[in-house]
């Protein structure tokens, strides 16, 4: 079992015929994901990789293929609308890989999705992978992952691969790995994912990877304190980042005391999380935490 995606996932890819879209769709299919349709306006009627039907509109794709999950690769100026199109067409879980959405678009779109009752992961995220159910709806390198009982949630892409790259060789497999994305405003935050992991019978512990900027980690700490019974292993990166500078991610900028790595670590420590002292220690700290429990 896994969260957000699973055996019942019928994946639609918006922007399937683009460079990124087509490359990653192939990787998702290889991993075992049930990709049922693609959408690229104007390219409707084609077949992707000789088998996945391409549509002009999400509405038609959903009507024809009963897709329930969407993976979005469209350019930033159109990504917000692509999310709304997915939700309006009945898609339940939307995963937006696109980086570079204007934050005012994200604010409106996230609010819209919340009202609709659908779920949104991202934007600017690597997606979701469930090694247990062989579903990959994202851009992560599938071979790093192994099935198991640890959930991973992170604001970062490659750093998640790093984390998993430390876990798998130690025999620690993953239930689901969720990248919530590096933007300041996103569809799902740590709290949303922690909540699902806490309720997931197939997850025993949660690795949470945060970074400087914003207060999402502090909100997570509050939630962990009161609602999470499973062990949480947490790493915060950006200890050495200077204030006021954007470190790649739109959200990774120290704008005040709360945005500092040290402040986030402190909150998580007080919430009872296992703190990973250095990015080198994600695997070992997780191992210790699992042995302790």
């Amino acid at each position, binding site marked *: 079992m896994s969260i957000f995606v699973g055996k019942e996932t019928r994946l639609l890819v918006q922007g399937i015929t683009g460079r*990124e879209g087509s*490359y*990653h769709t192939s990787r998702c299919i290889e991993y075992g994901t049930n990709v049922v349709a693609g959408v690229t306006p104007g390219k409707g009627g084609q077949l992707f990789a000789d088998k996945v039907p391409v549509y002009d509109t999400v509405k038609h794709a959903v009507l024809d293929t009963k897709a329930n999950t969407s993976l979005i690769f469209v350019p930033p*100026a159109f990504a917000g609308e692509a999310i709304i199109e997915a939700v309006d067409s009945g898609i339940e879980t939307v995963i937006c890989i696109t980086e*570079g959405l*204007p*934050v*005012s*678009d*994200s*604010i*409106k779109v*996230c*609010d819209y999705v919340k009202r609709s009752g659908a779920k949104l992961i991202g934007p600017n995220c690597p997606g979701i992978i469930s090694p247990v159910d062989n579903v990959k709806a994202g*851009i992560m*390198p599938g071979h*790093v992952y192994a099935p198991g009982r640890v959930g991973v949630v*992170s*604001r*970062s*892409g*490659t*750093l998640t*691969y*790093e984390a998993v*790259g430390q876990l798998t060789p130690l025999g620690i497999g993953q239930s689901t790995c969720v990248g919530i994305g*590096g*933007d*300041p*405003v*996103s569809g799902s*935050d740590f709290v949303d994912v922690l909540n699902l992991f806490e309720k997931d019978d197939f997850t025993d512990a949660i690795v949470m*990877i945060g*970074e400087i*900027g*914003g*207060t*999402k980690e502090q909100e997570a700490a509050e939630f962990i304190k009161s609602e999470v019974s499973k062990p949480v292993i947490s*790493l915060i*990166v*950006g*200890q*050495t*980042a*200077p*204030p*006021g*500078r*954007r*470190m*790649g*991610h*739109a*959200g*990774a900028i120290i704008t*005040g*005391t709360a945005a500092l790595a040290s402040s986030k670590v402190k909150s998580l420590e007080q919430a009872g999380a296992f703190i990973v002292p*250095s*990015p*080198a220690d994600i695997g070992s700290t997780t191992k210790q935490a699992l042995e302790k429990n």
Partner: protein
Amino acid sequence: MKLHEYQAKALLSKHGVPVPRSEVISSLSEVRQSAQNFNGKCVVKVQIHAGGRGKSGGVKLVDSVDMAEEVAGQLLSKNIVTHQTSPEGVPVNDLLIEEALNVSKELYLSILVDGGLGKVIVMASEAGGMEIEQVAEDTPDKILRVVVDPNVGLMSYQARDLATGLGIDKKLHSQFIKLLLNTYEAFIQTDCSLIEINPLAITSQGELLAIDAKASIDEDALFRQTDESLQYDSRQEPQIEKLARTSGLSYVKLDGDVGCLVNGAGLAMATMDVTMAAGATPANFLDVGGGADVDKVHKAVEILLSDPGVKKVFVNIFGGILRCDVVAEGIVAAAKASKTPVPPIVVRMLGTNAEEGRKILKEANIGVYLVNDFTEATKTIKSLS
């Protein structure tokens, strides 16, 4: 994207927010005339993209044209160092010459995006003129917050609530409400990520004015912002960052000697942290991104090596979309093309085509130390000190 104070004020003024009379000057010969507009009673302010200019002597109140000229001469075309700049500081290319006002009260007002809420918020405080972080620490209850519903925007009743909460004289409420709504309009119309008015002054004549203003535009929205007055002043940026930016690389210059080349922002920060934990200091943040090709990696290495502070390089790649062999080829090409001696390069490669990459690097004979994990990387970096 940061704007200068004078740009932020022009933006506010365009949207109907009152600001003091002022002029931007960029040569000493303009100072006297500007200062004469205010009979010499004016404030001379350096226009730089860094906080802390006041404490570093970048803001001076003068009371004569002569003094204005003298102060301007000390500031203009020099570098100024504040606690937010590098030790070399940033260049002062422009000065704002602004009328000096009789201020009876200073307030704080800002509009920004709250990531946790996923909404725009307005923050206001009666403790104006201080850094808001300080106020947040010392007297958090002096900060008022209002959350803006994205569907209906900032409501004037919310502005009125703030006016009441700030203890503003009722006679000035409508002035404050108009000022705040106009500031919000400027924020939304221009895709700002921040507008901060600090202080927002109430003059002895009972007028509200933005005495100092900061504004940043959301870089991701620049494609739809066409106002030319919102141009970025790239002279404020270190040459090396400018070069990286125009090459499509995300780069932040730091003070250390370990040049870092990483794919992914999170991993790049992690790499910096590991470097620091090893007792070394990173020279930069650099994310080559997921879609890099050989040329882009080549360019990235070239930029790293152009920093005279860089004594060794730490390449940390987790191949995913970006293949390790592509990175290796870029490194080799840059090393071979380098006109200066290439410092030792510690390379960690994992993921897609890692073996191929390592092989390319080994065979190129360019002084590469191949390591397998962070621990080994740390040791090697240490040993190179």
